[in-house]
């Protein structure tokens, strides 16, 4: 039974996406409740899958009972099950938030459409993680591209359209590069299954090395484009700025990470670390990551629009993950995985608390924060915790992530990156702290006149409180998470 759960998860998410328009006609509230219950169910089953996978062994599922080389194969190892758990948790938190935040630019007819897209996107993300087949992965990647593009431009305003257009343009280039790489690999091995491909890569390397070089370069660049790794980040800030805050949150906290996970899967499972490193690709990623860490922060510093700023901050944080990955060591991978989760929580907390500010003030300007700490104390406190996590103040998960990365960087003798980490942290402080200062230390003449604090729906407050607390929890007891990550790495 438990080996069927991954498929049940997928089918449930897909069914929900299809059902939304029909149930909505009966009652929209019922749809929301149903979606929430379904997400809880998916989460619970993901937990069961993880426990099973960790204790018993990988779940391998063949569709239609075809052999691996013919049909599609799902392989649920600790890696896949941990990150589906991560995706599911964040998706649930953001879902709860979005059910409260009905205002921001999405009209009510679009609102149900939003959930169709949301569940489709979740379906595709789960699929990518479970799938053990490259072409299948490509299909899921395409689904994410299209749905997230629609989610960005869901507002009935002209403003997001150019951003969405650029997003879809660059993402298609990325997907096609990825597809091109798959074709190159298929040419030498005749397989699309990851395990089978990995077995034939070595023999292919002797016969047709140029194919593999092209495959590696195109797939890496394609995924970098989609993951907004530094020089390819150009689409990200605009896409974040104009999208509704829940979309930005899921995009920045989860979707972008999925592509990095695919890249990790490719490097570790298909090409192998030695081959990847012998082409100097680790150096390329290190340079991209290091440059991203600093340049992302510098660009963020100069932004007037808060959500663009957070977008650039994501670029810089993705740099941290990429550096961890590019070290090509267990310690580096550990730090990358930890940072993926830590940044997911932190960025979601930031975007959602900014969402509350937008809900309240209808403006995204960095200048509009004066005195907000007294109007929406809970939201601004969570924002503060998340900002401290970004800077890397101890007691938050961001500090542990930085610590891990620092240790990993040293073990690879890349001492220069210690300096990069510090400069990047300092730049982070330079744009997050002024916002906090303005929120808590500037008196706003407006709020003193206002007698009552405007009510924020509990459905919006609860998720960010959970996010803030989990940032602190992981910051104080990182070993909770570290044990899981160590398990994943041991079995990867």
């Amino acid at each position, binding site marked *: 039974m438990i080996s069927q759960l991954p498929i049940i998860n997928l089918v449930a998410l897909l069914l929900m996406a299809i059902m939304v328009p029909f149930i909505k006609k009966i009652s929209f509230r019922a749809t929301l409740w149903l979606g929430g219950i379904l997400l809880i169910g998916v989460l619970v089953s993901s937990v069961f899958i993880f426990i099973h996978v960790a204790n018993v062994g990988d779940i391998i599922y063949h569709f239609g009972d075809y052999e691996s080389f013919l049909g599609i194969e799902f392989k649920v190892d600790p890696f896949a099950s941990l990150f589906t758990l991560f995706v599911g948790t964040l998706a649930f938190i953001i879902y709860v938030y979005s059910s409260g935040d009905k205002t921001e630019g999405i009209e009510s007819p679009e609102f149900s459409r939003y959930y169709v897209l949301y569940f489709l996107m979740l379906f595709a993300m789960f699929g990518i993680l479970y799938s053990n087949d490259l072409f299948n992965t490509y299909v899921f990647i395409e689904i994410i591209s299209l749905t997230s593009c629609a989610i960005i431009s869901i507002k009935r305003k002209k403003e997001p359209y*150019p951003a969405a257009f*650029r997003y879809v*343009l*660059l993402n298609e*280039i990325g997907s096609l*590069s990825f597809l091109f790489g798959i074709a190159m690999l298929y040419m030498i091995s005749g397989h699309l299954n990851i395990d089978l491909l990995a077995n034939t890569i070595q023999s292919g390397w002797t016969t047709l*090395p140029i194919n593999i*070089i*092209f495959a*590696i*370069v*195109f797939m*890496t*660049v394609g995924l970098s*484009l989609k993951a907004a790794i530094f*020089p*390819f980040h*150009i689409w990200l*800030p605009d896409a974040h700025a104009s999208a509704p805050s829940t979309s930005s949150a899921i995009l920045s906290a989860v979707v972008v990470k999925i592509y990095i996970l695919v890249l990790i899967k490719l490097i570790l499972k298909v090409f192998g670390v030695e081959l990847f490193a*012998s*082409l*100097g*690709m680790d150096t*390329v990623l290190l340079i991209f990551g290091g440059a991203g860490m600093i340049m992302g922060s*510098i*660009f963020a*510093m*100069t932004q007037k629009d808060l959500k663009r700023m957070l977008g650039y901050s994501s670029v810089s944080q993705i740099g941290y993950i990429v550096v961890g990955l590019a070290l090509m060591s267990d310690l580096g991978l550990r730090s990358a995985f930890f940072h993926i989760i830590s940044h997911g929580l932190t960025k979601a907390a930031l975007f959602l608390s900014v969402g509350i500010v937008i809900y309240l003030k209808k403006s995204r300007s960095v200048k509009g924060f004066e005195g907000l700490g007294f109007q929406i104390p809970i939201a601004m406190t969570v924002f503060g915790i998340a900002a*401290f996590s970004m*800077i*890397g*103040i*101890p*007691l938050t998960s961001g*500090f*542990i992530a*930085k*610590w891990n990365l*620092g*240790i990993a960087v*040293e*073990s690879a003798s890349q001492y220069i990156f*210690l*300096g990069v980490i*510090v400069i990047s*942290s*300092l730049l982070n*402080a*330079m744009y997050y*702290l002024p916002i906090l*200062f303005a929120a808590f*230390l*500037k*008196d706003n003449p407006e709020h003193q006149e206002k007698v009552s604090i405007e009510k924020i729906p509990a459905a919006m407050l609860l998720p960010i409180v959970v996010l803030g607390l989990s940032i602190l929890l992981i*910051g*104080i*007891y*990182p*070993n909770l998470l*570290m044990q899981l990550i160590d398990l994943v790495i041991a079995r990867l």
Partner: protein
Amino acid sequence: MTFTSPTSKPKQHLIITPSSARTTTLVFIALLFLLVFVGAVENWFGIIDKLNANTQLQASLWSFAHADVLLMIVLFLPVVGGFAQLAFGMRAVKWRDRMVMGATFINLALSLLIYPNAIDGGIHLEFPQALGLGLSFTLDMLGYTMVLITNIVWLFVMIFTHVYMGAEKRSTRFYFFMAITYTTVLGAVMAGDLFTMYLFFEIMTVASYLLVVHYQQEDSNRAATTYIFMGLVGGFLILIAMMLLYFEVGDLQFESALGALNQLGAVRYWIIGLLIFGFGVKAGMVPVHIWLPKAHPVAPTPASALLSGIIIKVGAYGILRVATSYYFPNSNIEPDAVWLTIENVGFLVIWAGIITMSVGVFMALQQSHIKRMLAYHSVSQMGYIITGVGIAMYLGDHGAVGYAGAVYHIVNHALFKSLLFLVAGVVYHHTHESDMYKLGGLWKKLPVTTFVALIAALGISGIPLFNGFISKSILHHGIVEAVHEGSWIFTLAEWIFIAVSAGTVASFIKLMYYVFFKKTTETYAQIGFEWDGMNAAMIALAGLIAVIGLAPNFIMNRFLLPQIRSMNFDPHFVEEVLSQLNYFQGSDLLTMLMVVALGTGIFLVGKKFNLFHLHLPRWLSVEYLIVFPWYMLMYRSCKLIDRKRHPLDPDTEKMISTDQSNPTGFLERFQITVNRFNDRYEKPFIQNDALIYVGLIVIILIFAIIRLI
């Protein structure tokens, strides 16, 4: 028949109000506790022997004083008190203040009780798993000395604050962050490993930011921003050093790591260098001291007193702690070669200290704002402490003199500098004037304040019979020792040391003269004499200054020597030189006489020729020299980039031009420049997308193929 009730008489002006009577009593009880503590430690009247005779009582007392949990209570009581007053503060100011003072007072009493435990080998507590690496707390005599002086100063400053901040806005927030800072200071000095220390140190930076920024004016915001960013930079430097140390050594406990460190090449110098700079930012070491004179004048008086009295000491304590633990060998029988690393570093640290003290005192002589002058004196006095730390490193197993001098000066400076800031606060409280040239003649109106200011000034100038003299003469011995055992070049350091001491004397003659004794036409009619908690707190601090000056051996024998004996200093040296030190010998007193004469001379010459008003021209200031080339570069690059299609628009050009009068700040210019570059990279739609994609993919392909071949 007429009946007059006593109440119907015209009410006399009460000199002592009930509230000030209460605070005075509290100060009195605290001093009494300290007296009992000293009595018990010194075994006056055989009090301890009598206790020991009663075995049952002795056993229960012993177990109570040796309970390790006391340490955690002392650590977290302030935070608990802080949250309690947060709950109360909205409703009743009276109860809030009582709660805060009560918590501090209990903390002092409890920390006195820990003494037997600390001297019997110390306390060690561990919390494994917390924050991944585990936290640990160790209390040896060095840590205990810091804890005690922190608690003493904090209590008196807290009592002062109760009166001083009573009527101000947002004082609840001030108390709350004061409580958090309190806990973090205690945590940093109790830490058993660098990681725990870093944790508390970093939170201390953030919490004390809110003390500095308290008034939320334009200037305090700016100064506090400098404060927090420099603090963060320092924290990050420590973080790098900590990562290196953790990776190379595998453990961050404060114990000798020389075995692993000596295997490394230059990295071991990097580690200690980063640590010294990181802690040095807080300690106000010279190239990184600039936050200190900015933050002090704008912070509320209690915050300045604590900042200068305690918080910057944590920086010096950090340097001392890491240097004497990681870089000291495990036992003193090892060959001299093991000391080499720390001796090399010590050489530089002594000079860093000498430069710090001379720059501090030179700048202090130029100031007119009382608090800014005191802040520069903090820099200068921290120079003394850093010199002591440097001597402790440089002389290796004979460094005990420097060690003792540094710790002793930390204690002394905590007392007199916090008192001086409180005096400045009282002066400002009554006159609303901080410029010392505009004051004068205050001794008639504020006799108590004048008296304590005089004692503090005598203390900081190092006049015999006051505490500064003791630690300064130990430090002087240390420098002489460095000349004997090390290099002759330290003779120069000795001269500078004497000159700086003379400068300090001159500076405080100036302060006392201009603020209290100068003849003035101002009558200050609004100031009436009133006895309040501020006076009591200040007198208590002044009393401690005088007592330490009169009986210097108590701290030496009961606090410093036990610590030094437990470390790896040469025992012969410690017993023969340090414990036999005579503070009041003729040569020291003569040197002091010379210093006072020189200082008076400097003051008279400076006053006569107006040398105290010298200021360097703008183009020579460091900030200008560093910043201007960048302005030029940014302006040029903004003009050059994409000149044909998108010329710089006139508004932006005006903002970024390099005119002398242009007020645009560095950060703003930087933002404009970056935005211009960024726009060039990101804005053009399809064209740039294609260019970036194709270009990068080609470059990476070529790179991969070249790597392959």
